[in-house]
């Protein structure tokens, strides 16, 4: 029998992991909410961000938490440029093209990284990587507690940004009614690019939070992005709150599933949730009607 202590620890650790999933999902759901399309390059961009954080430390000696200060705006710019100059013009507003272009981008980015860095798995060693906080019977790794707090902060900041700034209002206007927004003088292709930039910036933050305790290789993003898809679908495509709650739910489900069923079957649990949600409630548990 499992003791309540172990369950409690698994629950807390699941929440911490779930927060990171939520951060990755946040970018995805934001892009979906505004552009109404799935960004299949999300995982590859996360991988790219993790390599950037890795080399910022390895070559420049930059602590990942400091590197986030540079990488976040850099990835915002990258995402903005990708949407403005490649994805947007190349897909000409057609959903099917959007899927194919982002998939093509994913293939290019992933394999360019594979070519440049080979398939080796890399890790960095930080002095604080193994520090733990003790809460009752649970030991929590400090970097993951930091990640949890930062994710909540980013979600709050994003919510405030969307609520109170002009750009945030413009984004919501475009998401709600594209033509109307365009007629009232909002430059839709700029807003699309800003949204894509924010989504990509979320990945840079996630990468900097992940790298102290995780590894990086050219495939690393895929594992996260499939989970992020699940979260986005579960939380309702386009819903920020849904992504946050969905992320925590999936994190806990994976942690408890792994405890009872073993590592790989625990993962199947996530996909089963995913397929069932898509088939039974495609709008998600919290989402508005599609």
């Amino acid at each position, binding site marked *: 029998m499992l003791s309540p202590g172990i369950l409690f620890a698994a629950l807390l650790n699941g929440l911490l992991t779930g927060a990171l999933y939520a951060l990755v999902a946040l970018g995805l759901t934001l892009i979906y909410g505004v552009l109404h399309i799935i960004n299949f390059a999300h995982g590859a961009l996360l991988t790219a961000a993790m390599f950037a954080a890795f080399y910022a430390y390895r070559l420049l000696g930059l602590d990942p938490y400091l590197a986030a200060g540079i990488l976040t705006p850099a990835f915002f710019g990258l995402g903005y440029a990708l949407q403005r100059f490649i994805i947007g*013009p190349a897909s000409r507003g057609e959903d099917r093209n959007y899927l194919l272009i982002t998939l093509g*981008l994913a*293939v290019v980015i992933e*394999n360019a990284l594979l070519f440049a860095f080979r398939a080796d798995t890399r890790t960095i060693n930080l002095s604080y990587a193994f520090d733990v906080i003790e809460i009752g019977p649970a030991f929590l790794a400090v970097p993951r507690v930091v990640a949890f707090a930062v994710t909540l902060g980013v979600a709050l900041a994003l919510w405030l940004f969307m609520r109170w700034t002009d750009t945030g209002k413009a984004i919501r206007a475009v998401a709600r009614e594209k033509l109307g927004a365009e007629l009232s003088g909002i430059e839709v292709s700029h807003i699309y690019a800003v949204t894509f930039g924010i989504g990509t910036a979320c990945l840079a933050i996630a990468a900097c939070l992940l790298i102290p305790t995780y590894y990086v290789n050219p495939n690393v993003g895929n594992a996260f992005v499939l989970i992020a898809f699940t979260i986005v*679908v579960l939380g309702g495509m386009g819903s920020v709150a849904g992504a946050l709650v969905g992320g925590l739910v999936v994190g806990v489900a994976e942690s408890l599933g792994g405890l009872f069923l073993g590592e*790989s079957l625990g993962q199947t649990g996530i996909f089963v949730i995913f397929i069932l949600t898509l*088939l039974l409630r*495609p709008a998600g548990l919290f989402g508005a009607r599609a």
Partner: protein
Amino acid sequence: MRGLAAILLAVALLAVVPALTTSNVALNFMVATLLMALVGQGWNVLGGYGGQYSFGHAAFFGTGAYATAILQLRYSINAWAAFGMGTATAALLGAIIGALCFRSGLKGSYFALVTLAFAEVLRILASVAPITGAGVGLLIKLDLRPEAFQFQSRAPFYWIVLALVAASLVLVHAIENSRFGAWLAAVRENEDAAGALGVDVMRIKLAAMTISAAIAGAAGCFYVQYFLFIDAGIAYGSWISVEALLAPIIGGVGTVLGPLLGALVIKSLGELTKLMTGDAPGLDLAVYGAMLIVVVAFAPRGIAGALLDWRDRLRRRGAGAPVLERGHG
């Protein structure tokens, strides 16, 4: 008739390849190319003609491959029979996934996601279930007799995969010129309008998905006979799903010869990249991705479409008058 003549010409040209070279490297390359064309043709039926973009055709490829291997290994069924049953299993899976998706009204991004998820679930299950050999995979026993679907040389394999490609070309050509093909195109262009005009949308999509899965499954069955090995990463790997859509999109989506043309161009370019940059992995695949972006951006109907446009322009210039209708033959 012109369509059939083009198919015949393409197949005849490809059929003489083993007479020109006995090099195993060249034949391996051609088999891989034709396999890609076959999976691509399967994707083309559903994606190209039906407008449903699947991102998980590996589900059918892998199921065909595993079924063929398991039936031989665990139930001692003859390889040729196993091949047929493997294809049927893949078709059945296509019908089941199709029924689930289409009944829930999944389209566009959602359909792409759910097909991807099915392939991923199958991959994880195959990597732990004992019947699929779990993490080790399945090895088919060497038995070099034609009755066992194994041959001394590569040439018979090549002709068999070519025959499968030829059959898929003829089938798709027949679909294109049938009432079913017209219904399928109607569903692709506007599902609601097609439904309002009395097309049974659900049944049409389901039929397209079943045929599509059968073709991709046949490719999987052939794969396992050719390499005599399968594991979860090969069978259900996402790369198969990507290859399945690359060939038709680049060659010409919703055209009979598009997937074959696409596979030939893609694989040749991939080899060329490898020749120029050495054996470092990744760059050839990056080139595939770049081609996908360029084709979607500049040639929405793929290479075949670009060639047709070019021919029309030449004709128009030759005739000195605008050509209003493109002849279909």
